[in-house]
């Protein structure tokens, strides 16, 4: 942050060639270079805010995301605006209004006379469709004040099942006097879109984490074995990698997802299975890089020294060769984050990834193809904004990290 301010002020950076620069470790150098990148720092800030909000979603969301937190009196409701001032004066405490449903616009008494054309008029008019039945009006004389750090629905802050730890809490960042607040509006069941979006962030991120962990494991296995053994093992493994690399992955995910949909799985199992499939098939690029790296490194003196000291092959691979590659692996993992998230989203779009009761960004985005939502509930596009922000933040942080991890970027100034 200091670097940022210094940059804005236009001060030339003090580049004192002190001792610490030469003794700093690789990660300290990467960090220092990263902090000098303005766009990277801004994107990193946005990313960490989003991740924190996702991680502590129950705290930040005023309503429970599931059907139990749905507001039956505010289905298909538009986002509620927050005000500081209105005709009745201003207040420091922000407030919103009470919303009441508009009275039905059709007159049933006309039917009493047995006149069928009146019935026709009602059914052919648009007063019976869902969106006009759920039209809400602000009662501008009834304010509902926003309160901070209120107690609301109960959630578990930390839950580790096998240790029996379950810390529960009911503290929330904000809420209103009576009733519920819906910053992004509600969906057709009255579920709060804002709360769902926040909860979805973490689900999506955790899928990506599982997928990337699996990917890392498979790539390390393939690349490590192939690079270290060389010879025939290398040739066979690389031939398979090459063959996997040329097949477009999304159709393959699709085939696996179709196969998974035949098996009876709980949503959680399904979710892990999809993550594992996405991760396991994505080993080609990283595996090949790792292999090339190990092929060049294994003839270095330090490997010979380890060998002479009697270290086993697996020890040499895991303790010497892989760590020398760790910064590349970390950067590559971060750069791949958005692509994995996008893969999950495309599967959800086709209805083969996660499905409705689960909150994931893919599930929320998938709703955008519903014409009803496109025409009558535009606020359900709000998760799209969050999604775009998340991916953009990841991409910019990835770019900045790649530049920072390049040891040569220092020299040229």
């Amino acid at each position, binding site marked *: 942050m200091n670097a940022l301010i210094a940059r804005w002020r*236009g001060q*030339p950076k003090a580049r004192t060639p002190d001792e610490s620069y030469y003794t700093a470790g690789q990660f300290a150098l990467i960090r220092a270079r990263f902090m000098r990148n303005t*766009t990277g720092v801004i994107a990193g800030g946005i990313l960490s805010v989003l991740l924190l909000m996702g991680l502590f979603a129950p705290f930040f969301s005023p309503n429970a995301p599931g059907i139990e937190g749905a507001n039956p009196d505010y289905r298909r409701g538009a986002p509620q605006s927050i005000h500081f001032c209105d005709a009745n004066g201003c207040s420091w405490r922000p407030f919103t209004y009470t919303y009441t449903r508009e009275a039905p616009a059709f007159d049933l008494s006309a039917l009493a006379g047995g006149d069928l054309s009146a019935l026709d008029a009602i059914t052919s008019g648009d007063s019976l469709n869902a969106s006009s039945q759920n039209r809400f009006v602000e009662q501008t004389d009834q304010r509902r004040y926003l309160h901070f750090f209120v107690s609301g629905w109960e959630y578990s802050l930390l839950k580790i099942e096998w240790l029996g730890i379950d810390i529960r809490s009911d503290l929330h960042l904000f809420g209103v006097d009576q009733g519920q607040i819906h910053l992004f509006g509600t969906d057709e069941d009255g579920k709060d879109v804002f709360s769902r979006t926040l909860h979805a962030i973490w689900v999506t991120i955790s899928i990506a984490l599982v997928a990337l962990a699996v990917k890392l494991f498979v790539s390390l296995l393939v690349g490590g074995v192939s690079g270290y053994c060389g010879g025939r093992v290398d040739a066979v493994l690389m*031939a*398979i990698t*090459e*063959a*996997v*690399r*040329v*097949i*477009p*992955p*999304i*159709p*393959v995910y*699709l*085939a*696996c997802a*179709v*196969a998974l949909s*035949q098996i009876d799985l709980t949503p959680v199992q399904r979710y892990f299975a999809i993550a594992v499939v996405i991760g396991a098939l994505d080993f080609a690029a990283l595996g090949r890089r790792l292999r090339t790296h190990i092929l060049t490194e294994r003839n270095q003196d330090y490997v010979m020294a380890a060998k002479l000291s009697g270290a086993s092959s697996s020890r040499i691979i895991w303790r010497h060769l892989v760590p020398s590659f760790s910064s590349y692996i970390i950067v590559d993992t971060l*750069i791949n984050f*958005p692509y994995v998230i*996008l893969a999950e*989203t*495309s599967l959800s*779009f*086709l209805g*083969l990834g996660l499905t409705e009761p689960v909150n994931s960004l893919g599930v929320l*985005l998938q709703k*955008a*193809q519903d014409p009803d939502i*496109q025409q009558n509930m535009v606020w359900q596009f709000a998760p*799209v904004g969050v*999604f*775009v922000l*998340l*991916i*953009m933040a990841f*991409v*910019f942080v990835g*770019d900045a990290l*790649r*530049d920072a991890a*390049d040891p*040569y*970027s220092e*020299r*040229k*100034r």
Partner: protein
Amino acid sequence: MQAFLTNTWLLWLLSGTAALLWWRGRSSQLFYYIFNRYLLALGTLLLVSGIVFSLMEVLPGDCAEKMIAYKNTQGEVITQAQIDAERARMGLDQPLPVRWASWVADLTLKGDLGFSCAKRQSVNMALGDRFWMSLGFCIAGLLFAYLIAVPFGILSAWSLNKPWLDRKRHHTPLRRLRNSIGLVIAKLVDLQLRLISYLGLALPNFLLALSIILLYVFAGEPTPTGLFSDEWRGQPWFAEQGFQWGKLNDFMGHIWLPILVIGWAATALQLQTVRALVVDESNKLYVEAARARGIDGFRLWSRYPVRHSISPLFNSVGFDFQRIFNDLPIVAVVIGLTDAAALLIEALAMTNDQELAAGILFLVALVVIGMNFITDVILAVLDPRVRNSVMQAGGH
């Protein structure tokens, strides 16, 4: 004789090419290298066919069940014995390796991709020219991505690590001002372009296509979905009065949408790649040496780092194609195209048509491997660095 040749033409073609390359390769290192690459490509194709074919085993149901289910809808009562008989007739009771071998044999002998159960015609017939259509979309999208990514990726690499303002003491104030304006513009353009291209990545393709279609709906214009509008769909390309320009016009008015959507999404990755390649090259010592010799500005960048980063970029064309095809099916579903990508989705997710899906996936892999082979050969001919390493590797 005639029948024998028409049934085995592809095999003759393949082995003829191999023989020609081998014969030329006896006296020429280059052709020896190409021969090796050729064999490697064929081997990879064989492996791909194995992977694709066994992948299709995970799809539920098989051809016999579908055939019988179809007969069932026609009012016939079907027993399990009939299903088994049908299965035996189609050879589906054989183990997987046997079926795969016969599929590969048909493929290498006469380019026959098998039989599509859901369409009840051969895969080649079902595909028709749809595969060419997908290929056209992908290549157009790829060109679009390259057109944007290459120049602006280089610009991005150039402006990296550059300050916003020129503060060099030895420049005159006027020159400093001019340089500063140039720098600010370059940096802003770079930032804008990166934002826009990453937006293409961050907005999932289906959403992008949907939003563009929605904009048309809100504006009250006819949406550019499908390939033709209704009035031109039935018309032939060539009528009595010559070539139908109106149809071409209409076609162009429709295909820009898928090309824009997949091209935009691919731009982000291309931009990242070009940027990383040029940055890597520009930090190397030969660039420093050129700078020390007094070469500067445009001449330095175009002759040294940019020139060197072209060949890895060119080398990855095949995989770029794979990546862009990867996005096409979902776009095709949203826009309502009827190309091979849409067929693939239909075969995978809806009708579980194993051989059709396997055929399309195999064709995509074939194009990727073919592109890789061609780029390898072209680089070996044109790029002196690759050429030298080829000559040395063969010369031991």
